[in-house]
């Protein structure tokens, strides 16, 4: 059953890249990707939670009774999310201000629970670790890409530097919530088109 570790890691980067292929965890994908920095920050926070919870769930998979497994997963995930929240407040406060409520909401991110349930509960630790890491990096890349597109077109900047010069009138629609849906939809379409062959 267990495939190679490299496969588990690599699948999260393209074949099963979370927001585009699994279409999981869309709430933060839509809400925080107003800029590249926010997208990557959110992605890294989720990656941390994903890797830690995958490792712990996999470690405890023989101990956790299957009837209460979801409750156990939630406790584990919620603990790591709170760890991230506190650490971010203490060491990356500006990012915390930007992400706000979406950090605690990682708890209910289907992606994290989904990986714990569908993968880590059934697989050995090393495989779960690489699965979490791969999925997390795939998630971060997707959020970063979406954030970058929205930031460049929506505010004419990238990481605070002006891209088009001062004559560019930002297309602020993309920064707002409906713009996130449109942008995500277009990127999904492009990804489907690219992998169709």
């Amino acid at each position, binding site marked *: 059953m267990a495939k190679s570790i490299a496969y588990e890691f690599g699948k999260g980067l393209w074949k099963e890249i979370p927001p585009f292929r699994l279409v999981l965890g869309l709430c933060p994908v839509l809400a925080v990707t*107003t800029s590249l920095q926010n997208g990557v920050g959110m992605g890294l926070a989720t990656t941390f939670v994903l890797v830690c919870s995958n490792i712990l769930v996999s470690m*405890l998979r023989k*101990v*956790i*009774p299957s*009837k*209460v497994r979801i*409750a*156990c997963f939630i*406790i*584990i995930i*919620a*603990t790591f999310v*709170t*760890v991230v929240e*506190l*650490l971010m*407040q*203490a*060491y990356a*406060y*500006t990012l915390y*201000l930007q992400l*706000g409520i979406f950090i605690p909401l990682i708890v209910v991110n289907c992606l994290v629970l989904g990986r714990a349930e569908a993968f880590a509960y059934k697989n050995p630790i090393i495989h779960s670790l690489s699965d979490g890491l791969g999925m997390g990096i795939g998630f971060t890349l997707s959020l970063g890409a979406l954030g970058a597109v929205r930031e460049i077109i929506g505010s004419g900047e990238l990481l605070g530097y002006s891209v088009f010069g001062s004559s560019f009138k930002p297309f*602020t629609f993309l*920064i*707002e919530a409906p713009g996130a849906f449109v942008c995500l939809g277009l990127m999904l379409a492009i990804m489907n088109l690219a992998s169709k062959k």
Partner: protein
Amino acid sequence: MREMIKMVLVLTILSSFSGGLLAALKNGTQEKIEYQELQNVKGPAIEKILEGCENDPIVDRFKVADGEQERSFFVGIFDGKPKSIAFETYGKGFAGKVGVIVGVNLEDGSMLGAQVTTHNETPGVGSKAQDDPSFVSQFANKTVTDSFGVKPDGGNIDAIAGATITSRGVCMAVTEAGEIYKRLKPEIVKQLEKFNK
């Protein structure tokens, strides 16, 4: 029965372990988080309001009990005398609370300025209350104990175009600041004597 006991045991151990970890982390980061809040949100706003003061208002602060809560006041020393204070109040914006820090000159009750701190207003619309200095600059040199309102409501402050509710929230916060100032002035004056060198 055995299974039942196992479920309870696993959940209990898991929860208590997570509780302990989080409590320890919370204790460890609390000081750092408070410091970050002061540095990143309130600090810059206070410095802008009390511009040109001779001390560091973030260090020179005191608390006054107001009913059930405590309010922090930041002292600005000009010409060797603690002439001004800054403090934070809240108004109701378009999406939750809008925090406003108001600076007051104690000699004549005039406002040195106001700055929006924490808010969840729409980016590019309501967020102008924080980013666009021409809105908050309307409060400078007005008497803090006046009541403020936006012009569509028959008040004296020009609202931000498209963000009347946010502007109204800021006016509410400043009006509230005037009431707090009236109520706590004797106590503030008493506390300020400590800073008189």
